[in-house]
């Protein structure tokens, strides 16, 4: 690595980008102009925006009480609105006031509805009586009539193009007066008085109607409160009677906290999205653009190594990514502050001064920007190198942006807070950390800073390594634009079989397993929900076995038979010698306590287990099954099916990439990922490393199956009998039973660790040098395998 070359390439690329008007526009001009322009646009829209008045029809106005008045001057009285100007936003048509032909037509539609409503009232009371009497036959008939009636009402309502209809019942004002009289005359008696109340009709599926109805409801509530106050006064009761507990809400939020709350939401999201978009366009220009313009080969024949070239380009992309993010953030910050200071009314007016975050918080923004922009720059550069042309490169933006947006939106949700598990996730860690650091109620975020920075830089380095790898691959650099022919490709797949699957076939198999698992969720969920709690345990185990056979084992088996020429080599169906099987089982036995202890120590790190999983665990511990059912579901089926998939097809495919270590890591990761729950993902991935090593070194699937069976079997035994180990004496040196079930003491763990290391070393050096690639003579069988039948 010669840093001089990296510097030379970096300087040239930066100069090149600065001479490109498109890039300059995207990176610098756009953010500086965009936010003020948006601000101006918003001001203009508010000025031009005028709400269309909504139509409310009020029938039976003659029965309204005169004091307090609901209507005044053919509108709702202004006093019932928080903002008196809002009164003009509701056009009121009453049976005594309909001037224009449109209003008359509306009234003509609305008036018959009063009658329909009355019929519905009658029906409702009849239904109630029938329900009380248990008259099933007439109940069904009445209900049907009621539905019919509602339907009629709905049709008329929609035809009339009104947004709200209010029907005041006959003699409403009189009833109010009578109620008052009753209360005054009751003496010691309880006053029992009921009367028909007004009806409010709306269509909540129609946005306009919904908004108008909410407004009208607000008006009616205020009016009702006034009526109540007046009534209480007249009958001589205290005004606080209906609201004996009316808490006074006091908001303690300070101005700068309100501002910080705004920034803590805006800045992390914008930082993530802008560092991605800022990385993307330069990356495409530096990767695919260079191929397109025919200068890629010129650069490749200079003495700079591929790593130097990628690093130079990567630093350029990162510079522009960071610059875009910072320019966008500052432009947004200043525009936002200015806009808020302009606002006179509305929710924003509370924050007269939208103070920018303090310098320390801004410093954290810059610190987080470094790993974020590094990750996106490396990813974009890898994609851009892979793309044949700038156009193809742009296609890759969408999925990358979608994933990033999804993660960002998740982080923005107020319920999502920083926790150890999130801190090591890409994008989420920095976004949540920033959200925490910028938020007004600064909870202790300092513990997360180091893990977030470390993992973020880790991800960036992985992405960079991938980009360098892409750049070193001649298939990627010299991809020719080829016509893609599905038939030709399928024929090639089936005709030019090789002994083991290709890398992409293995990847496809994994995606297929994941998709099947996703699709099967619903299929498995439905019967489980229907089953009674007693049946659920057995049913779940049956479903687990089916899932293993159909989803995990079938795709790789099918693909192995169809797409490879040596099923034996693909699935490692070679006898490893008698010694390997028991050795693998012993390894499982000694690794089991270690991995349990590890999981227990790591439990703080993960979000708590979902309820369904704890339920499964408690099901296993129950006594009312025969022993073989859980053994089949939790030990035998996974041992065979998962090994076939992950140490068979997938590992063989990944190994074709040429790197053994990478193949083991990939097979372990994929094995982890299908376990879904974060705790199990980590555990399974670690065990996957061991299983992968054993499979590669012994060149056989069988030790893996034995290991897997022993491990899962032991877990089963621990869950079922863990509470029953003998206690006291020597046993206490090894075991401990606490609230989590069986735990292990340091002496046992130390012993296990030493044995595990010993066995792993044995496996690591298994049959070194005796390359027996042709040990599959007995396989495949003479006749090709028959798939059908």
């Amino acid at each position, binding site marked *: 690595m010669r840093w001089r*070359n990296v510097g*030379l*390439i970096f300087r*040239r690329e930066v*100069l*090149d980008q600065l*001479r*490109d008007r498109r890039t300059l526009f995207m990176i610098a001009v756009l953010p500086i102009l965009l936010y003020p322009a948006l601000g101006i646009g918003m001001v203009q829209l508010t000025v031009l925006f005028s709400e269309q008045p909504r139509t409310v029809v009020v029938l039976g106005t003659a029965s309204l009480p005169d004091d307090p008045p609901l209507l005044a001057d053919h509108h709702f009285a202004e006093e019932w609105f928080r903002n008196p100007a809002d009164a003009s936003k509701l056009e009121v048509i009453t049976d005594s006031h309909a001037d224009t032909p449109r209003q008359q037509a509306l009234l003509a539609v609305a008036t018959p509805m009063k009658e329909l409503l009355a019929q519905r009232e009658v029906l409702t009371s009849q239904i109630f009586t029938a329900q009380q009497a248990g008259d099933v036959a007439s109940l069904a008939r009445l209900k049907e009539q009621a539905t019919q009636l509602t339907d009629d009402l709905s049709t008329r309502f929609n035809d009339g193009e009104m947004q709200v209809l209010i029907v005041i019942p006959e003699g409403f004002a009189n009833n109010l007066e009578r109620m008052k009289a009753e209360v005054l005359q009751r003496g010691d008696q309880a006053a029992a008085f009921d009367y028909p109340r007004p009806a409010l009709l709306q269509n909540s599926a129609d946005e306009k109607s919904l908004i108008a109805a909410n407004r009208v409801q607000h008006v009616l509530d205020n009016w009702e409160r006034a009526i109540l106050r007046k009534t209480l006064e007249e009958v001589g009761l205290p005004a606080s009677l209906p609201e004996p507990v009316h808490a006074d809400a006091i908001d303690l939020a300070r101005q700068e906290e309100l501002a910080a709350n705004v920034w803590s939401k805006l800045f992390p999201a914008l930082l993530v999205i802008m560092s991605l978009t800022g990385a993307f366009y330069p990356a495409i220009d530096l990767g695919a653009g260079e191929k397109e*313009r*025919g*200068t890629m*080969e*010129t650069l*490749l*024949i*200079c*003495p*700079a*190594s591929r790593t130097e070239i990628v690093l130079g380009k990567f630093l350029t992309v990162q510079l522009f990514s960071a610059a875009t993010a910072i320019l966008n953030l500052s432009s947004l910050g200043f525009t936002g502050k200015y806009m808020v200071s302009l606002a006179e009314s509305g929710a924003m007016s509370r924050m007269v001064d939208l103070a920018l975050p303090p310098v320390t918080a801004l410093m954290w923004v810059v610190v987080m920007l470094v790993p974020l922009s590094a990750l996106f720059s490396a990813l974009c550069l890898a994609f851009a190198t892979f793309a044949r042309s700038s156009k193809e490169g742009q296609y890759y933006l969408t999925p990358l942006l979608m994933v990033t947006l999804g993660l960002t939106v998740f982080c923005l949700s107020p319920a999502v807070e920083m926790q150890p598990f999130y801190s090591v996730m890409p994008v989420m860690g920095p976004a949540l950390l920033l959200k925490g650091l910028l938020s007004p109620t600064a909870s202790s975020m300092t513990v997360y800073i180091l893990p977030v920075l470390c993992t973020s830089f880790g991800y960036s380095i992985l992405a960079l390594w991938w980009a360098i790898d892409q750049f070193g691959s*001649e*298939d990627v*650099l*010299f991809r020719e634009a080829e016509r893609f*022919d599905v038939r*030709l*490709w399928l024929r*090639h797949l089936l*005709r*030019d079989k090789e002994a083991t699957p290709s890398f992409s076939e293995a990847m496809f198999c994994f995606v297929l397993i994941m998709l099947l698992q996703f699709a099967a969720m619903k299929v498995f969920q439905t019967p489980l929900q229907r089953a009674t709690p007693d049946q659920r345990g057995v049913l779940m185990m049956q479903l687990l076995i089916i899932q293993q056979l159909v989803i995990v084992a079938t795709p790789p088996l099918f693909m192995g038979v169809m797409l490879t020429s040596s099923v034996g080599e693909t699935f490692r169906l070679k006898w490893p010698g008698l010694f390997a099987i028991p050795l693998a089982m012993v390894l499982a036995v000694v690794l089991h306590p270690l991995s349990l202890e590890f999981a227990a120590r790591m439990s703080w790190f993960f979000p708590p287990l979902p309820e369904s999983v704890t339920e499964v665990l408690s099901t296993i511990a129950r006594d009312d099954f025969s022993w073989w059912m859980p053994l089949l579901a939790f030990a035998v089926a996974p041992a065979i099916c998962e090994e076939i998939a992950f140490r068979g097809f997938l590992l063989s495919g990944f190994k074709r990439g040429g790197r053994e270590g990478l193949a083991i890591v990939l097979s372990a990761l994929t094995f982890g990922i299908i376990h879904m729950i974060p705790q199990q993902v980590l555990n399974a991935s670690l065990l996957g490393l061991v299983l992968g090593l054993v499979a590669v070194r012994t060149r056989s699937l069988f030790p893996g199956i034995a290991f897997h069976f022993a491990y899962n079997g032991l877990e089963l035994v621990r869950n079922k009998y863990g509470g029953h180990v003998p206690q006291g004496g020597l046993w206490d040196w090894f075991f401990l039973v606490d609230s989590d079930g069986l735990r292990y003491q340091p002496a046992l763990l130390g012993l296990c660790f030493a044995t595990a290391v010993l066995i792993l070393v044995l496996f690591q050096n298994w049959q070194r040098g005796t390359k027996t690639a042709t040990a599959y003579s007995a396989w495949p069988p003479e006749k090709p395998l028959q798939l059908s039948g």
Partner: protein
Amino acid sequence: MIHVEQLTKRFADLRLDGGFTALDHVSFHVQPGEIFGLLGPNGAGKTTCLRILSTVLRPTSGTAMVAGYDVATHPEEVRSRIGFMSNNTGIYDRMTAYEMVAYFGRLYGIPENILQPRIDHLFDRLNMQEIRDVLGSKMSTGMKQKVSIARTIVHDPPVLIFDEPTSGLDVLVARTVVEEIRALRDQGKCIIYSTHIMREVEKLCHRIGIIYKGQILAIGSLAELQDQYAKTDMEALFFELIDRHDELLQGAKS
């Protein structure tokens, strides 16, 4: 200076069983002060062969030694000792002629105090002083080709590889290019020159390899080839070799 032994390159190709063989056990040697012509139609494997020599592609099998280094194991040493120019080695649009040549000169590790006079000298020799500060995007094809030549020889490499350097050029520029290559030979450089134009081969090359469908059909000096195949006309010789090879392939198939 260049030793190619049994060089083979296969590419994955869906249409063909076992992939497409672009180079099939090709062997040849080139000495300093010599121009070796690689003559063949389009798609014969010339570019693949030269790309392997420039370490941009890796050989599937066989070896290629350039200036004493194996292209597969010491690609960076090889790259710093060769000058490579082809249709695919374009120049940057947003760089001036001077910046472009200086950039590559620095990548080759030439110290600044030597680089400046050398570029000046090169620009004088190639009549490029007036395009010194012109951006790549504003240049004509001929100007671009001159910048490419300057870029190829700025570090004074002992080995030079030209892959169809005159294709698409008008006669005047093509003549400049050919003259420049001849001058380089006179300086004792080891040169490979690939083309599908017979006249250029006849004028320039000491020895010729005729390549077709990834195989070298004949190799030798012009006189040797004419003697061996009893043909004085280069074009007739070329077509006869190709026809004979096609018949051979047909025979093998049936």
